[in-house]
């Protein structure tokens, strides 16, 4: 099998600019919000790719572009080798049998006037599948059962369900057509803590059973670590680092990734409070007017002159992480920021293992690029 066949999705130089206009009648474009600005990554079959970043980094826009709920400004999205970036309406309908999405807010993503049965059967109606109503109903009830809803609630309305159950309805609708790719945009951030784990476990279970490929978008780094095989970190419309979860969380190379990890409060008084951490100062700059060269240089603790002059390329640093940084974090800096044993298996040896792996496993890692 050739390398490209392992990739379900290949995204190249994807951009999405939202125009900023002035004037009401004679509109004139005076600028653009560069929500996604030249993003390239691939999603392998059967894996879970996480995309993390702060508000406004472009992660949700990336998700919507992947599902083609939005038209990209430029770039290509290869889905099973076919470019879907330019796909027209008819092609999109076919695409949406293969690519589905779970939305963030289970309250606004379900039509309050339709019964759950109708909502979950909607994909069948759109695609003209399972025309017999008895057949369709049977399939919908199977789906409800699969996501942990009581099939007898077929005729109930969304308001009769709790947040977690509504998110299950959203998941059932998304898997109805047995898509190959499921894009989940912050699927648990609107849910109560005790419910989040239920939905996360459901997604993981479904992925195993159905062989789904999952793109999982979240701002919660612990959730992403739990769910994902590989993680891409976005900052101001660009990917700054992409690596296997274990590598990224135990040995982040980009200073931004390091700062994000250091900022996560850890639910254990020994893990959190006593950690020395360098806080990022300031806010994320506006994506309408991002800093030139390296976009992180205005907040970066390691920034030097070069960072404001030349844009770092996303390239292999060390052997296992791909980072866009001129001066990636060193091992001792990571240890200072995150503390020994952080992000690993709880054992102090975890980072060392990754590092040892790095020196010996350069051959296996080259395939991940």
């Amino acid at each position, binding site marked *: 099998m050739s390398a490209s066949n392992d990739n379900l999705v290949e995204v190249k130089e994807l951009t999405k600019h939202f125009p900023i206009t002035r004037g009401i009648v004679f509109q004139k474009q005076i600028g653009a919000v560069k929500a996604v600005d030249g993003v390239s990554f691939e999603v392998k079959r059967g894996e879970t790719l996480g995309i993390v970043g702060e508000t406004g980094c472009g992660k949700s826009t990336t998700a919507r572009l992947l599902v083609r709920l939005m038209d990209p400004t430029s770039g290509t999205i290869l889905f099973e080798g076919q470019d879907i970036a330019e796909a027209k309406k008819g092609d999109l309908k076919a695409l949406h049998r293969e690519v589905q999405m779970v939305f963030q807010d289970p309250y606004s993503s379900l039509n309050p006037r339709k019964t759950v049965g109708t909502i979950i059967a909607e994909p069948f109606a759109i695609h003209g599948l399972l025309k017999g109503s008895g057949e369709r109903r049977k399939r919908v009830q199977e789906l409800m059962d699969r996501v942990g809803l009581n099939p007898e609630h077929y005729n109930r309305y969304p308001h009769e369900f709790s947040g977690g159950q509504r998110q299950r309805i959203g998941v059932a609708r998304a898997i109805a057509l047995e898509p190959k790719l499921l894009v989940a945009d912050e699927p648990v951030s609107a849910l109560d*803590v005790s419910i*989040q*784990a239920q939905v996360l476990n459901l997604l993981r279970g479904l992925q195993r059973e159905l062989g789904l490929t999952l793109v999982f978008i979240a701002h919660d780094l*612990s959730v992403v670590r739990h769910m994902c095989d590989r993680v891409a970190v976005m900052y101001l419309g660009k990917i700054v680092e992409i690596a296997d979860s274990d590598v990224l969380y135990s040995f982040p190379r980009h200073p931004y990734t390091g700062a994000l990890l250091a900022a996560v409060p850890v639910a254990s008084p020994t*893990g959190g*409070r006593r950690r020395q951490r360098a806080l*990022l100062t300031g*806010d*994320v700059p506006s994506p309408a007017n991002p800093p030139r060269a390296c976009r992180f240089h205005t907040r970066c603790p390691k920034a030097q002159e070069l960072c404001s002059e030349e844009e770092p390329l996303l390239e292999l640093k060390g052997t296992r992480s791909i980072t866009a940084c001129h001066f990636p974090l060193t091992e001792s800096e990571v240890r200072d920021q995150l503390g020994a044993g952080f992000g690993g298996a709880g054992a102090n040896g975890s980072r060392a293992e990754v590092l040892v792996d790095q020196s010996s496993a350069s051959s296996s890692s080259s395939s991940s690029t």
Partner: protein
Amino acid sequence: MSEALLQVEDLKVRFSTEDGIVHAVDGISYSVEIGKTIGIVGESGSGKSVSSLTMLGLTRTQGADIEGRILFEGRDLVALPDSELRKIRGNDIAMIFQDPLSSLHPFYKVGAQLTEAVLTHRNVGKAAARARAVELLELVGIPDPSRRVDQFPHEFSGGMRQRVMIAMALANEPRLLIADEPTTALDVTVQAQILALLNDLQSRLGMAIIIITHDLGVVAEITDEIAVMYAGRIVERAPTDAIFSAPQHPYTWGLLKSIPRLDSPRGEELVPISGRPPSLIKRPSGCHFHPRCPYVRDEHRKIDPKLEPVPGDEGHSVACLLPAELRTRIWRGLEQGETSATLRHLVVEEAQPVRAHATPRVPEDVPE
């Protein structure tokens, strides 16, 4: 022993609605000492916000029924008339709300909103109030405060708005600061900044803080003591370290085991709490947590547990009917990666030896 600044005694808040009486807060007691930070943790609908809003008299609406006492420096806030309470609110006790965007008035400049509290409570002129506003913005780390004071809320980012909210709350140097989900709407990096700011301000100004959150990570970072609330009650209260090292209540275990953590092994399965939070109108009989508790025994459905000290640990209290020794064994098991399904036999065996070999029954995942 230091002196209690605030003492909540058997506070009950009920609201009568069309559907019935909502028991939002049902007999909670705790105290906050001068300069300490207490965390109140719970899910939405656990009564954590209502309990603190009541402190400021913000739940005194029609249909609300408030019982119990809230002693602040010896005065009972529940019994205090509105006019007296107004002198305390924003002055001795201040509050930071969750959503900084909707808590700031969009039409007024930040400076005007900041000085409102100062002008209300102190006899100062406008110029002095403005100087105070600039000083406050500087205190919370907003760069270029003398220019920013004349800007509108929409000109500030989320994190900066939350800093403005904090500045507003600090305007009269309160003795007690109530922070209701102060970082929930913020990104992690900004959240870390705000938590560090609160910590720093506390050590400089010596105020007590009540922080209300659903995020155990947040409370682990900055609190001295934690109260876990469920269905309007405190089910466990302990010093922060003890909540994480030796939690006693099955709900607390559930919370700790259902969130993925950066310092736990990656492949570890999450153990969700089954079911969902109960309705506060028709609450479950007996222990309110019993429909979701994997360690439920028959009598737990009838007996209502009281918050009692854990034997051998004075500062730690829990409302659970399981014997203390059994709770310790279960938590040790959970720590070693066992699940509630495999540990349930500990509970069932002792209670009903006949059914010891029956398959352990875990409550259904999907409730009615």
